[in-house]
C-alpha cells in the first residue's frame, strides 16, 4: 500500500512540474454539461471501461481514498481532475495526461504495479475520444457492487463448473479414469512418474480405514489377496461402501462441519444436555448410509419442516441449525447459524460481514442481514415434533415409569407449596390486604403495628392479585367491596370530600348481604371510625377480613351470614388467596425458585440421559410473521440501519437477486445453495471428500473459497468430481467410488526421493499420502482388533472418553462443548463451538501418554491375551496370531527377533506389575506407528 501511495504522490508532483514548465496547465476546463450519449456509446463504457476503472483505479482514486485528490468514479470527477488539473483533454484526447501515465513511458506510471493491457489502454483512449460516455444518474455511479462484479467475473470459485476436457497424456496405460488423466497430465508436465499400485494388503486396509474407520479382519485380507477375479478391487469397494460403519465414519466428518455437541453450552440454571441432539447425529449417519442425495441432504438440514417428507426421521436433519452453542441471544444464535451454513456448504465467510462489508469478498453487510432475516424468521417450537411413536420406541414403558417418578417430585413440590401459600395468604390477609389496598410507604409500614410480615417476606404477586381482584373481579354492587371500589382509588386531596359523600350514601343503604346492600360488618366498623385516608380505609377492610379468618379458626366457630359474605372473598374459587398448580410459580422467591429448578433439572437430566424417551427432531419452524431485517450498524442491534430484503447473496446471484417469496425464505435459501448452477456447493463438498481420502485439501482453505483462496492446481480435478456428483443425482457414494477406483488413489505411499525433489508437498499426487488415524478411528480400531467393539448404532450419546468398559464407536461419545474432554482435545478434536474447516494434526506427548497408560487401552491388551482364542493358540503361534489380528500380516523374521529379545530380557514381574509379558507385547503392538498410520 505504502509503495503505491508514494509512487502516485511523486507522479502527481512531477506531473505538476512538467506541465508548469511547458505552460500547459490551463485553468480547469469549465465542467462541460454532460452530453447525451447513445446506447451504443454507453455500452462501450460498461463493457470496456468501467471494469478497468473498478479493478485497477478505484482503490486509490475512489470513495475511500483519493490519491492526489483524484477520483475516477464519476464523469464530472474525472473532468475535474486532480491537484494538477484535468487528466483528460476532450479536445485533443491523445494529449490527455491520463493516457501518458497509462503508457508507462515516463517516470509517472499508473497503475504502479502493472501496466494495463494494450487493449485496455486503447479502449480508454477511444472512450476519451467519445467524450467520456457515462450513464447519468444512479446507474452511472461506481459502487462496491462494481468491484463485486469484477470478483464475480474473475475469481475462479465463482466461475461455472463446466465439463472438464480430457487432457492428452503420453502414458496411455496408467489412467483408469478421467480423474487419473487429469492427475497424470500435470505429473507428466513436471516430469514425475506416478507411483506403482500399492500391494493388496495395503489397498484393502486403506479402503477399510478410509471408508469405515476400522481395519479389515485377517480373513478379509486373505480372501482379497487371493481373489483372482479382475474386478476384485471394484467389488471390494462396493462391498465396503455398503457397510453400515460407513455412515458412522463419514457422519463424524460431517459432524465437524456441523459443530455437533450434546450440550447447549453454559447455563447456570438449566440442564445443559440436549435431550435430542443424537437424533441429528443419527440422521447424518443414516443419510450417508442411505446415500441421501446431497441436494436433499442440504434441504433437510435447512428446511425439512417445509418439505413433504417420505421418511419423517429426515426432520431430524434440521438439528444442524440448533445443535450449536445456545447463547440465549437471538442475534448470536443466528450469527452462528449463518456462519455454519455459509462456510459449511459454500465455503463463504458470510459472517465476516456482520459489522461491515466483507473486507475481501463480494459480501456486502446487506447480504449478511438478508440471510439474518431468513434465519430470524424461524424459531424453536415450544414442543419438538416426535419422529417415532412411544410404541415404536424401545424401552418406552420403563422410561415413562421413571419419568412419572421425577415428574411426581416436581408436582408434589408445587402442590405442597400451593397449599402452604393458600394457608399463609389467608392467615396473613391483614398484611397483604393493607399493602394491596392502602399502598403504604416505608414509614407508614413502620407505623402500622398490626403488620407481622416483613416487606422482604411479602410475595408481591399476592398483593397485585388482591388489587386486581377488588378492581376487576368483584361486582360493582358487592355489599362488602363496593365502597372500596369507589373510595380506594380516590386521590389524597379529594379524599375528605369524596369520603363525606360516600358516608352519606352508606347511611342510607340497606344492610344485608345481597347486591346493592351494605354488609353490616363494614357499615359498623366504618361508621365507628370513618377513615381519613385510603390507608385507613384499607386497614378497616383488612381488619374485617382478618377477624373473620381468625373467627373460623376457633373451635366450633359458626359464621354469621355477614361474616360468610366476607369470608367468601377469602376462600372462594376466585379468591386471590387461592393458589393453584397453575399460578404457584408467581409466588416463588429466589430460594423457592432454586429448589424448584433443581427438580426441573432432575427431570430434564432424566429425559436427556434415559433411553426410551421417544425421539424428537431438533427443528425450527417459521414464525407467524417473517422477520423483516434491517442492517445492524457495526453489528449493533440497537443501531438499526437500512431495511434489506430476505434474499440470496450478491456474490452468487449478482444483479439477479430476488426477494424470497415464501415465508422467511428458508426453503428457497436451501434451493439456492443446492442448485446445480451454484458454483461453490459441489466444489466445497468434493474437496472435503478428497481431503479425507488423501490427507490433503485441494485448496488452501476448505471452508473459505473467497478471494483469498488461490486457484487450486487441481481445479479441473475438483470440477470433474463436482460433475460426477451432479451426473449421479448428487450421490456422495459415487464420488467415493470414483476416487477409490482411480489409479491415483491406488498408488503406493512409499517415498521416492527423485519425485519428492520435484514436488516436495506432493501437490501433484505422485503418491498416496500416508495418513494418521484420527482419535475416533484409532480408538475404534483398538476395540475392533481386540474383539471388543460394540457395533450398536444410534441413540443417546454416552460417556466413552472416561470409560474403559463402554466399547461403542467413538462417534457415540458424549460431546460436552462446555467442558470438552481433555482426551478429545489432545487428539485434535475440533472445538464444537463453531464450524470446523479441517482438523489440525498435532503430535503432543499427551497423546502418547493416553496410549501408553490409559486403562482404556491397557485393558484391551490384557483381556485379549486372556481370551480363550489367544490362550488356546500354541505358544509358537502366538506372535503371529497377534500380528494377524492387529496388523493383518505375519511378523518378519527381524520382528520375531525383537519379540524374542523382549521376552528374553523381560524383567520378572515386580509387585506393581499387573501385566504379563504377552499382555505388554500386545499393548506395544497397539502403540506402533503401523497401527496408527494408513499407508
Amino acid at each position, binding site marked *: 500500500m505504502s509503495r503505491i501511495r508514494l509512487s502516485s504522490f511523486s507522479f502527481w508532483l512531477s506531473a505538476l512540474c512538467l506541465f508548469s514548465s511547458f505552460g500547459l496547465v490551463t485553468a480547469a476546463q469549465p465542467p462541460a454539461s454532460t452530453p447525451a450519449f447513445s446506447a451504443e456509446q454507453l455500452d462501450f463504457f460498461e463493457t470496456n471501461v468501467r471494469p478497468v476503472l473498478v479493478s485497477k483505479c478505484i482503490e486509490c482514486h475512489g470513495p475511500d481514498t483519493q490519491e492526489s485528490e483524484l477520483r475516477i468514479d464519476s464523469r464530472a470527477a474525472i473532468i475535474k481532475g486532480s491537484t494538477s488539473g484535468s487528466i483528460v483533454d476532450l479536445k485533443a484526447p491523445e494529449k490527455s495526461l491520463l493516457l501518458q501515465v497509462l503508457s508507462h513511458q515516463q517516470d509517472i506510471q499508473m497503475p504502479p504495479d502493472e501496466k494495463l493491457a494494450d487493449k485496455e489502454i486503447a479502449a480508454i483512449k477511444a472512450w476519451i475520444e467519445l467524450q467520456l460516455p457515462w450513464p447519468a444518474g444512479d446507474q452511472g455511479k461506481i459502487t462496491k457492487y462494481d468491484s463485486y462484479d469484477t470478483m464475480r467475473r474473475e475469481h475462479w470459485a465463482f466461475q461455472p463448473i463446466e465439463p472438464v476436457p480430457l487432457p492428452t497424456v503420453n502414458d496411455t496405460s496408467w489412467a483408469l479414469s478421467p480423474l487419473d488423466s487429469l492427475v497424470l497430465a500435470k505429473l507428466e508436465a513436471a516430469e514425475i512418474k506416478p507411483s506403482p499400485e500399492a500391494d493388496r494388503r495395503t489397498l484393502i486396509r486403506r479402503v477399510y480405514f478410509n471408508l469405515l474407520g476400522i481395519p479389515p479382519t485377517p480373513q478379509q485380507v486373505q480372501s482379497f489377496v487371493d481373489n483372482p477375479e479382475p474386478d476384485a478391487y471394484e467389488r471390494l469397494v462396493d462391498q465396503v461402501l455398503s457397510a453400515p460403519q460407513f455412515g458412522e465414519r463419514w457422519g463424524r466428518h460431517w459432524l465437524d462441519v456441523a459443530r455437533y455437541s450434546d450440550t447447549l453450552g453454559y447455563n447456570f440454571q438449566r440442564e445443559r444436555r440436549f435431550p435430542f441432539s443424537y437424533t441429528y447425529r443419527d440422521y447424518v449417519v443414516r443419510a450417508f448410509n442411505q446415500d441421501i442425495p446431497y441436494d436433499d441432504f442440504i434441504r433437510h438440514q435447512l428446511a425439512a419442516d417445509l418439505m413433504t417428507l417420505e421418511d419423517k426421521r429426515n426432520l431430524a436433519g434440521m438439528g444442524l441449525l440448533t445443535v450449536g452453542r445456545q447463547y440465549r441471544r437471538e442475534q448470536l444464535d443466528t450469527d452462528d447459524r449463518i456462519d455454519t451454513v455459509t462456510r459449511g456448504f459454500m465455503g463463504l465467510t458470510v459472517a465476516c460481514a456482520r459489522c461491515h462489508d466483507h473486507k475481501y469478498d463480494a459480501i456486502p453487510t446487506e447480504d449478511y442481514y438478508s440471510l439474518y432475516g431468513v434465519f430470524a424468521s424461524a424459531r424453536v417450537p415450544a414442543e419438538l415434533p416426535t419422529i417415532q411413536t412411544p410404541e415404536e420406541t424401545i424401552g418406552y414403558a420403563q422410561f415413562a415409569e421413571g419419568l412419572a417418578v421425577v415428574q411426581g417430585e416436581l408436582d408434589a413440590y408445587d402442590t405442597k407449596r400451593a397449599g402452604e401459600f393458600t394457608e399463609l395468604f389467608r392467615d396473613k390477609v391483614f398484611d397483604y390486604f393493607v399493602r394491596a389496598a392502602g399502598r403504604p410507604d416505608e414509614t407508614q409500614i413502620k407505623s402500622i403495628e398490626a403488620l407481622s410480615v416483613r416487606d422482604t417476606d411479602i410475595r408481591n404477586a399476592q398483593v397485585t392479585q388482591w388489587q386486581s381482584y377488588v378492581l376487576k373481579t368483584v361486582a360493582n354492587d358487592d355489599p362488602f367491596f363496593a365502597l372500596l371500589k369507589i373510595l380506594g382509588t380516590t386521590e389524597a386531596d379529594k379524599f375528605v370530600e369524596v369520603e363525606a359523600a360516600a358516608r352519606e350514601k352508606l347511611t342510607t343503604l340497606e344492610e344485608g348481604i345481597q347486591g346493592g346492600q351494605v354488609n353490616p360488618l363494614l357499615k359498623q366498623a366504618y361508621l365507628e371510625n370513618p377513615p381519613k385516608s385510603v390507608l385507613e380505609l384499607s386497614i378497616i377492610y383488612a381488619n374485617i377480613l382478618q377477624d373473620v379468618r381468625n373467627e373460623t379458626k376457633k373451635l366450633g366457630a359458626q359464621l354469621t351470614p355477614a361474616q360468610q359474605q366476607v369470608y367468601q372473598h377469602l376462600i372462594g374459587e376466585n379468591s386471590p388467596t387461592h393458589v393453584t398448580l397453575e399460578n404457584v410459580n408467581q409466588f416463588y422467591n429466589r430460594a423457592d425458585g432454586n429448589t424448584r429448578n433443581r427438580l426441573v433439572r432432575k427431570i430434564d437430566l432424566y429425559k436427556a440421559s434415559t433411553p426410551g424417551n421417544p425421539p424428537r427432531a431438533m427443528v425450527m419452524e417459521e414464525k407467524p410473521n417473517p422477520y423483516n431485517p434491517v442492517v445492524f450498524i457495526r453489528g449493533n442491534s440497537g443501531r438499526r440501519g437500512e431495511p434489506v430484503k430476505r434474499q440470496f447473496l450478491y456474490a452468487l446471484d449478482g444483479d439477479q437477486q430476488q426477494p424470497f417469496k415464501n415465508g422467511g425464505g428458508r426453503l428457497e435459501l436451501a434451493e439456492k445453495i443446492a442448485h446445480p448452477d451454484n458454483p461453490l456447493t459441489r466444489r466445497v463438498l468434493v474437496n472435503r471428500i478428497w481431503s479425507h481420502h488423501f490427507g490433503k485439501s485441494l485448496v488452501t482453505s476448505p471452508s473459505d473459497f473467497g478471494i483469498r483462496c488461490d486457484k487450486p492446481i487441481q481445479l479441473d480435478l475438483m470440477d470433474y468430481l463436482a460433475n460426477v456428483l451432479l451426473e449421479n443425482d448428487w450421490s456422495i457414494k459415487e464420488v467415493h467410488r470414483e476416487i477409490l477406483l482411480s489409479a491415483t488413489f491406488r498408488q503406493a505411499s512409499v517415498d521416492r526421493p527423485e519425485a519428492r525433489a520435484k514436488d516436495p508437498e506432493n501437490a501433484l499426487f505422485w503418491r498416496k499420502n500416508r495418513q494418521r488415524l484420527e482419535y475416533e478411528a484409532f480408538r475404534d480400531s483398538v476395540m475392533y482388533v481386540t474383539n471388543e467393539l460394540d457395533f450398536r448404532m444410534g441413540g443417546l450419546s454416552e460417556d466413552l472418553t472416561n470409560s474403559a468398559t463402554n466399547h461403542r464407536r467413538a462417534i457415540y461419545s458424549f460431546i460436552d462443548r462446555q467442558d470438552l474432554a481433555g482426551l478429545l482435545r489432545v487428539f485434535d478434536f475440533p472445538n464444537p463451538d463453531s464450524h470446523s*474447516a479441517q482438523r489440525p494434526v498435532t*503430535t*503432543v*506427548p499427551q497423546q502418547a501418554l493416553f496410549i*501408553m497408560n490409559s486403562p482404556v487401552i491397557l485393558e484391551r491388551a490384557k483381556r485379549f491375551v486372556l481370551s480363550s482364542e489367544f490362550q488356546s493358540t500354541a505358544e509358537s503361534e502366538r506372535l503371529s496370531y497377534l500380528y494377524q489380528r492387529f496388523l493383518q500380516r505375519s511378523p518378519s523374521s527381524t520382528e520375531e527377533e525383537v519379540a524374542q529379545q*523382549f521376552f528374553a530380557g523381560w524383567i520378572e514381574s515386580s509387585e506393581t506389575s*499387573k501385566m504379563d509379558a504377552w499382555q*505388554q507385547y500386545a499393548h506395544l503392538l497397539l502403540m506402533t506407528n503401523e497401527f496408527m498410520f494408513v499407508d
Partner: protein
Amino acid sequence: MKKPNEGIFHSSPAALTGFSRRELLARSGTGLGMMGLASLLGDDSLLSTSQAADAVSPLAPKQPHFEGKAKHVIHIFCNGGPSHVDTFDNKPELTKHHGKPLPFSNLKTERKTGHCFGTPFSWKQYGESGIEVSELYAKTAAAHIDDMCIVRSMHADVPNHEPSLLLMNCGESTLIRPSVGSWISYGLGTENQNLPSFIAMSPGGYPIKGAQNWQSAFLPGIYQGTYIDSKHRDVEKLIANIRNSDIPLNQQRQQLNALKRLNEIHREQRGESPELDARIENYELAYRMQLEASDVFDVSDEPAHVVESYGTSDAARQMLIARRLVQRGVRYVQLWHGAGQPWDNHDDIEANHRRLAGQQDSAIAALMSDLKRLGLFDETLIIWGGEFGRTPVVELPTAGANQGKINGRDHNHWGFTVWLAGGGIRGGQTYGTTDPFGFRAEENPVHVHDLHATMLHLLGFDHKQLTYRYAGRDYRLTDVHGEVKQDWLA
C-alpha cells in the same frame, strides 16, 4: 492486497495441517527432542536452522515482536470479585458516610443496593512509596509494595459474573474467543516441552464458566489451558494418564525400547517420513514427561520453612506449585481461588474476605520473595484481581438469598482494582482512581482491553499484530480496542 503478510503470527489452521516435512517436525512439539530428531534424520539444515524450525513449532519457544521483559505470567484470580474498597483502594469518605446515602445516586449493579458501607478493616501505609493497603494484605504489602503497581481505575462492561469472567479471560463477554493464556502460548510457545505451556489450577473444581475461562477457541487445541484440580496431592489425579497403574517404569522402558525398534523397522521400509519420526520421538517425550510432571507437583522436596511460609490452604499450596512451574519454564499459570466463586461475598463480607485473603496473603508474599530470591521476579509478571470489584454501598437483602443480612457488597464493574508486579512493571505506584466513594473509575480509567494490551506488551507483543486468521478474518485478543499503559512500565 490479496496476500497479507504470511508471518508466523499470521498462520492459520491450514498452515498447521499441511504436510510439509519441516512443519511436521515442528508440530511434534519436540523442542528438546528436536536436535536428536534432526540428527536422527541426518538433516544438517535442520540442525543449523533449528531456531527457524522452532519458530514454526506450535509449542517450541518463539520470538515475540520485540524483547519482552516478562517471560512468564502468574495470574492470581480471586473469582467472584474481591472488594477493592476493602483491600487496595481505601476510601475515608466512605467510612465517614457509613450508614448514610451516597451524595449521588447508586450506580446500577446486579442487585439492589443501599447506603454507604465503610470498610471494616484497618489500613496502613507501606514501604517507601507509602501506599495504603488494608490489613487483609498486610504481609504482601509489607514485603513487596514498592514492587507493585496498584491499578485502582479498572472497569468492565456489565455487573454479572459470566460475561465479566469471559471478558477478563478472553477479551470478549459472550462470543467464543481464545483466552489470554492461549494467545500467549500461541505467540511465545513454551520453554519446557515436558510440561504444558498453560496451566489453570483451581482447587476443588471449576470456577463459574468452567473450561471456557482457559479455552483456546479457534486456536489449535494444544494452546488450551490444562486444568488441574490442585486440591489433589496425587499426581495421577493432576494430569491425565501420567502414570501407568499396571506396568512399572522399568518394564515400560523395555516396552518402549522394543517399540522403538519395531517403529524403526517400519520406517526403514517407507523412506523419508517426518510424520513417523515425530511419533517415534513423541513416546520418548511422554516418557520424560511422566518423570518431570510427577516431580513438579510433588512439593515434598521443599524445605519445611518454605512450605510454612506459604501456608497450608489449597490456595496457598498452589502458589508454591506455581513457582515450581515457572522455575521449569511453564509460560502461563492461572490460580483460581477455588470452585464456584468464593470471593462473591454478597453478605458477611468481613468474615469471608478475612478468611479468603487469609488463605492468600502469606502465600503471595512468599511467592514474590521466592521469585526474587531465585532471580525470576523480573521475568515473571504477577497479576492479582477478579472479574470485577464490589460496591462501596451495602447490598440490600433479597428474599430467599441473603435474607436478613445487610453486611455484604454487590458486584461492581464500574470501578475496581487489579495489581501487577514483576516482569517489566514499575512498582511502588498507584495508577488511576475511583471516585471518592470507590464506585466508579474516575481518573485514568483502564478497561480490561487496556490491561490485556499492556500484558501483551510486557511479553513482547504489539497487541494489534498478534493475530490469527480464522473463518476469513484476522482475530486478536483486544479485537479493535486496547491501549498500552506506558505509565505502568519499568
